[in-house]
């Protein structure tokens, strides 16, 4: 798998650069996942605010609601949940699409035309993943913060100034960068694993089915493991 990724990055250095194909894959991985991200982001923010509010009340610290919700979303929940959603929606589809191309000899046809399959199938997805995940993460965090606002200010009666003031006081550029690094790396992980599983799929419908399942399961597990290691590096 490591060799597969290394080869993909190697071929990324040489033309042709298939801009149209990259845009198409950004649309597939990014734009078409937006609705899912809007829904999951807003409800994650809302439930987070609800849970945290009642905990903070016990300490008389409910004024900190905005900052706790925002930091949780920016540093952790945003990148991770967003990545899990993309793995479930786009990762599985990528593995299936490339897997079907493999078993129907479409990849061999590309190769036989002396065209590099990495250029046409793998690299556009990797680049699309790298671009899409941070943008989706931005959307997730933004709607999540406003979801928290709806609960904190709309339902629990906090003032708007208290909610956003807390965010302004406690969230700094380092926190935002932490989320950005995570979502960038998750973008690579999801597309790498999904493309790899599709590219080296087994035979027939069963092979593609297994590849698709493995792509989602492995991506999800690796996202959580990688998140731990990234967090431990970034916080230290």
């Amino acid at each position, binding site marked *: 798998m490591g060799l597969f990724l290394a080869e993909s990055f190697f071929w990324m250095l040489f033309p042709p650069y298939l801009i149209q194909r990259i845009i198409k894959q950004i649309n597939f991985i990014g734009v078409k996942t937006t609705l899912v991200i809007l829904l999951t982001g807003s409800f994650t923010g809302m439930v987070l605010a609800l849970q945290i509010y009642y905990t903070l009340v016990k300490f008389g610290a409910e004024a900190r609601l905005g900052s706790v919700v925002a930091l949780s979303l920016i540093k952790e929940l945003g990148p991770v949940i967003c990545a899990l959603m993309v793995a479930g929606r786009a990762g599985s589809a990528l593995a299936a699409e490339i897997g079907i191309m493999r078993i*129907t000899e479409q990849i061999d046809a590309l190769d036989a035309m002396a065209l590099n399959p990495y250029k046409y199938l793998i690299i556009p997805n990797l680049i699309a993943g790298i671009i899409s995940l941070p943008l989706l993460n931005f959307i997730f965090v933004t709607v999540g913060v406003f979801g928290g606002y709806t609960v904190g200010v709309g339902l629990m009666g906090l003032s708007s100034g208290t909610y956003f003031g807390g965010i302004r006081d406690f969230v700094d550029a380092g926190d935002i960068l932490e989320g950005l690094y995570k979502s960038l790396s998750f973008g690579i992980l999801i597309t790498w694993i999904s493309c790899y599983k599709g590219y080296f799929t087994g035979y027939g419908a069963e092979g593609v089915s297994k590849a698709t399942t493995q792509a989602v399961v492995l991506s999800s597990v690796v996202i959580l493991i990688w998140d731990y290691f990234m967090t431990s590096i970034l916080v230290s």
Partner: protein
Amino acid sequence: MIEVVDLYKNFNDFKVLKGITLKVEKGQTMALIGGSGRGKSVLLKHIIGLLKPDSGKILIDNQDVSKLRGKKLRQLKERFGIVFQGGALFDSMTIFENVAFPLREKTKLNASQIRETAFKELAEVGLSGAENKYPAEISGGMKKRVALARCLVLNPEIILFDEPTTGLDPLIGKAIHNMIRSCQKRHNLTALIVTHEIPAIFPLVDRVAMLYEGKIIASGTPEEIETSKDPVVHQFVHGELEGPISIK
């Protein structure tokens, strides 16, 4: 000229090719016959450089395909065309886009020249009017013809066919055979056709080779193969159930 010398290939413990030796002269058409799942398609994929042999040589005009890498391998592949068993059409593209794709990627033709060339090639295989359909919307015979058009559009010197008429009705099958023959004559192609269409393929080819148990056990003119005294060749060519070939 294609020359395969003592080619071996195993997949895990399964020995597929066990010392294949085969020669196709320039401008010649050869039919490769043999039982299903015996390695004929594997041999084609070795010839075009999609698979690497465990040992042996595949010489194309004295260049060993298995030793070539990078630009030299790409240049060699550009001399080939291959029609895969299922057509291997790109299912996200229309018929026109499938035929235009190699022109877009491998030539410097402008959009109108590409359009003109692709339409002309599709007309040659009798598919005018189907340009905007997707592979899922056309029949098996049409898919094979699109694959043939896509293959011929870059004027290859050598063309490989992997069961071009399998699963088609006899009329479509014959039409495709005639198309292959006329293309071969018109462009003076060297062609290797993997087929089970025996004896229908015999009038269309210059030579026939038979693959059995990982080796070429017979090679000759269609007449020589049809009248062969070798019991294996005789049984296979005449489709007899009794004989040395077990159908278990």
